[in-house]
C-alpha cells in the first residue's frame, strides 16, 4: 500500500473530520504525493539501502549514533534529488544482534523480502564474514564501514564488498609506527601484552608483535596475558602487569571490555607506572567516558572528526548532525565512515551513470572519491579505501565538552603506508568462490 493510499484510508476512518476538512486534506495529500514526481524528471524507482547494524549485543552502543544519523544524511541526499538526481533513497534497518547467523538471516530477509539494492553492514567482523556469503551469492553491493577484519577484503574477498574503514592490519601498522617512535625515544626494552581471547584480539596482537619486532627488535615482549570476553574484574591482571614492571604495555582490547579495563586500570594508577599506548579510543569513547578517561594516554582511532575539520564535507556533516541531535551531537568514527559509504554510493552511481550494482562495482574499482576525510582512493586488489589511522594523546580541548586527541602530537598514518600484505599476496589469500 502506498503512503497516499494509507493516508486516504486513515482519513476515511476518521469520521470526526468535517466534510470540508476531508476534501481539503485529500487535496493536500494528493498534492504531496505528486510533489516528488513533479520535482524529479520521471517517476524513478527508489533505491533501497539495507542497513544491517546491531541495536542488541556488544555492538549496540557503538552503532547508536550511526543508526539515527543515517536517516538524516539520506534525507539530505534525497533533498538533492537522490541518486543521480532522480532515485530517492530509502533505508530499511535490521538489527543483526551482533550475531553471525542472525546477520545472515536478516541479510537474506533484506535482499529477498525488502529487495534492497545495497547493504551497509555491519559492526562485527564475524557477522560481516557471514553476511558476505549472502551478498556475494545474490550479487548485492556491500559497503562495510566498521567491521574491519582484513579477512573481509582479503581472504573472504568479494568484488561486491567495499571497505571504508581502516582494516585491522592498517590499524596495527599505525600503532607499530607510533609505538616504535616512542620506544626509540624513551629507550624502551620490554612490554607486557593484554588481550581479549578471541580472533580479533589474537590477530591484533600478532600484527603488533611481529610489526614491532621488525622495526625495533631490541624491544621484547616479557609476558602475554589473555582474558575472556566480558571480563568484569581486571584487578588481578593489573597487579600482575605492575609486578612485571614493563616499560610499556600493549592492549588488544576493544568494546566495553576496553572501557572496563581503562576505568579500573586508571583507578589503580596503572598508567602512572606503565604507559599504555595505542588502545582503541574512538570518538564515542572520548564522548562517553569524558569524566573517567585518563588524560595523556595514547589512543588509536579510525575516523575522528577533529582530524579533518578543514574538509568541507566534514564541516557540513558535523553541522547537520549537531542541528539534528543537539550541541553534543558530534558524529563518532562509525557514523562518519558510514556517511562516507553513503557518499561513495552517490559518487559511484554518478560515475557509472546508473544505479545498477554491476555498474557501480565497476565504477568504484580503484576509483577516487570525496569523503569527509578528503579525497581517497580504493585499493585495486581489495576494494579497501586508502584511509588513515589516527594515534593521539587524550587531551582536554577548550573547543569541546569532551577530550579529543591533542592536535600537535596526533599522528595520521596513511593507509597505503601500512596496508599489508602486498597486492600479490592478497591475491594468494583470496579464497576461490564458486
Amino acid at each position: 500500500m502506498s503512503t497516499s493510499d494509507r493516508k486516504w484510508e486513515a482519513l476515511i476512518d476518521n469520521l470526526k473530520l468535517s466534510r470540508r476538512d476531508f476534501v481539503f486534506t485529500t487535496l493536500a495529500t494528493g498534492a504531496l504525493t505528486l510533489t516528488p514526481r513533479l520535482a524529479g524528471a520521471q517517476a524513478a524507482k527508489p533505491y533501497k539501502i539495507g542497513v544491517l547494524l546491531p541495536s542488541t549485543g556488544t555492538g549496540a552502543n557503538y552503532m547508536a549514533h550511526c543508526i539515527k544519523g543515517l536517516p538524516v544524511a539520506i534525507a539530505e541526499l534525497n533533498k538533492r534529488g537522490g541518486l543521480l538526481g532522480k532515485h530517492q533513497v530509502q533505508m530499511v534497518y535490521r538489527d543483526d544482534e551482533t550475531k553471525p547467523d542472525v546477520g545472515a538471516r536478516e541479510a537474506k530477509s533484506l535482499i529477498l523480502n525488502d529487495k534492497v539494492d545495497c547493504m551497509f553492514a555491519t559492526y562485527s567482523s564475524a557477522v560481516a564474514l557471514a553476511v558476505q556469503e549472502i551478498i556475494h551469492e545474490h550479487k548485492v553491493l556491500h559497503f562495510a564501514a566498521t567491521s574491519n577484519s582484513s579477512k573481509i577484503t582479503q581472504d573472504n574477498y568479494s568484488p561486491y564488498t567495499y571497505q571504508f574503514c581502516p582494516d585491522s592490519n592498517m590499524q596495527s601498522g599505525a600503532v607499530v609506527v607510533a609505538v616504535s617512535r616512542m620506544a626509540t625515544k624513551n629507550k624502551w626494552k620490554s612490554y607486557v601484552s593484554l588481550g581479549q581471547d578471541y580472533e580479533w584480539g589474537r590477530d591484533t596482537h600478532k600484527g603488533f608483535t611481529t610489526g614491532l619486532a621488525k622495526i625495533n627488535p631490541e624491544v621484547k615482549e616479557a609476558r602475554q596475558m589473555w582474558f575472556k570476553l566480558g571480563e568484569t574484574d581486571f584487578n588481578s591482571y593489573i597487579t600482575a602487569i605492575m609486578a612485571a614492571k614493563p616499560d610499556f604495555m600493549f592492549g588488544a582490547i576493544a568494546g566495553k571490555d576496553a572501557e572496563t579495563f581503562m576505568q579500573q586500570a586508571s583507578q589503580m594508577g596503572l598508567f602512572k607506572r606503565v604507559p599504555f599506548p595505542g588502545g582503541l579510543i574512538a570518538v564515542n569513547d572520548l564522548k562517553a567516558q569524558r569524566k573517567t578517561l585518563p588524560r595523556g594516554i595514547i589512543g588509536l582511532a579510525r575516523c575522528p572528526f577533529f582530524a579533518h575539520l578543514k574538509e568541507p564535507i566534514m564541516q557540513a556533516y558535523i553541522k547537520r548532525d549537531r542541528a539534528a541531535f543537539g550541541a553534543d551531537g558530534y558524529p563518532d568514527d562509525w557514523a562518519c565512515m558510514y556517511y562516507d559509504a553513503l557518499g561513495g554510493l552517490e559518487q559511484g552511481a554518478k560515475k557509472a551513470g546508473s544505479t545498477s550494482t554491476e555498474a557501480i562495482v565497476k565504477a568504484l574499482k580503484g576509483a577516487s572519491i570525496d569523503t569527509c576525510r578528503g579525497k581517497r582512493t580504493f585499493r585495486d586488489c581489495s576494494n579497501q579505501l586508502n584511509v588513515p589511522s589516527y594515534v593521539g594523546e587524550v587531551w582536554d580541548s577548550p573547543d569541546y565538552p569532551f577530550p579529543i586527541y591533542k592536535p600537535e602530537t596526533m599522528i595520521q598514518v596513511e593507509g597505503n603506508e601500512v596496508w599489508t600484505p602486498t597486492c600479490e599476496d592478497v591475491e594468494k589469500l583470496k579464497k576461490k568462490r564458486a
Partner: protein
Amino acid sequence: MDIGPYVLQLFSGLSRAMVLFLLSAGLSLIFGVMNILNFAHATLWLLSGYLTFSIFTFLSEQLGASPWLLLPAIVGATALMALIGFALERFLIRRTYERDLPEQLLLTFALVLIIGDLIKLVWGVENRRINLGVQPVEMFDTLINPYHFVIVGSGVAVAAGLWFFLHRTRLGKIVRAAVYNRNMVSALGIPIPLIYGLVFAAGVGLAGLAGGVFLPLLPMALGVDHDVIVQCFAVVVIGGFGSMLGTFVASIIVGVVYAFSILFWPDGALAMIFLIVIVVLIWRPWGLFGTELRF
C-alpha cells in the same frame, strides 16, 4: 624473594572473591530456602547498577558532586530492588511452586530477557559509569585502588550479617527451619508465603547491593549480566547450593585461584574454573558444603 607481588595478587584475589560472594550470596540464599534457581539474578544485579547510577547522578546534580553520595544511592537502589524482589515473588514466582523444576527455571529464564530489555528501554544502549575521583594509594611498592577495601569490607560485612541473621535472629532461624521442613514450619503457624516473599526480597536486595557497590568499578552495559551469571553459578555449584558458608568459601577459592593462575598460567585461568565446576558436579554434585538432602 620479593613477596610484594604475591601479597598483592592475594589481595586482588580476595577482592575478586568478595565481588563473587556479593554477587552470589543472594542466589544461594534464594535457592537454599526456596529451591528456586533464579537465572535472572545477574540481570537484577545489572538493573540495580543502572538504578544506582541514576540515583547517584540525580543526587550529584541536586547536591553537587561528592563520592559520599554513593552511599545513599546504594541504600536507595537496594531498597528498590528488595521491593521489586518481593513483588516478583508475590506475583510471578509464587505461581510456580507446585510446578515441575523445568517450568520454574524457564520462568526465571524468561525474566532474564524481559528485565534485560526493560533496562534497554529505560536507559538505552549507552554504557553508564560513574567516577568517584578516588586516587590510587601506594602499597608494597605499587599502587592499588583503595575502593577494593570497600569491596572486601562489604563482602565480609554481608557475610557476617547473613550469618548473624540466619543463626542468631528468630526470623533467621525460622528461615533455616523452613529449608528443612516447610510443612512443619507452616504447621507451627508461621506464614510460609510471607517467609518466602521476604527471603526472595532479601536475595534480590543482596543482588541490588552488589550492583550498587560495583558501580564505581564497572561500567554498566547491556549484556554484562550474561557474562556474570555463569560465574555466579560456578560459585554456587562449587560451594553447594543452599549453603552460605559454601558460597563464601567457594568465592574465595575461585577468586584466589583465578588471581594466581593469571601469574602462572594466564591463558588457562577461566578453563581452571570451568574444570573445577565440572569436577564438582560429577564427583559431588551438591557441592563442597551442600547437603545431600538438596539432591
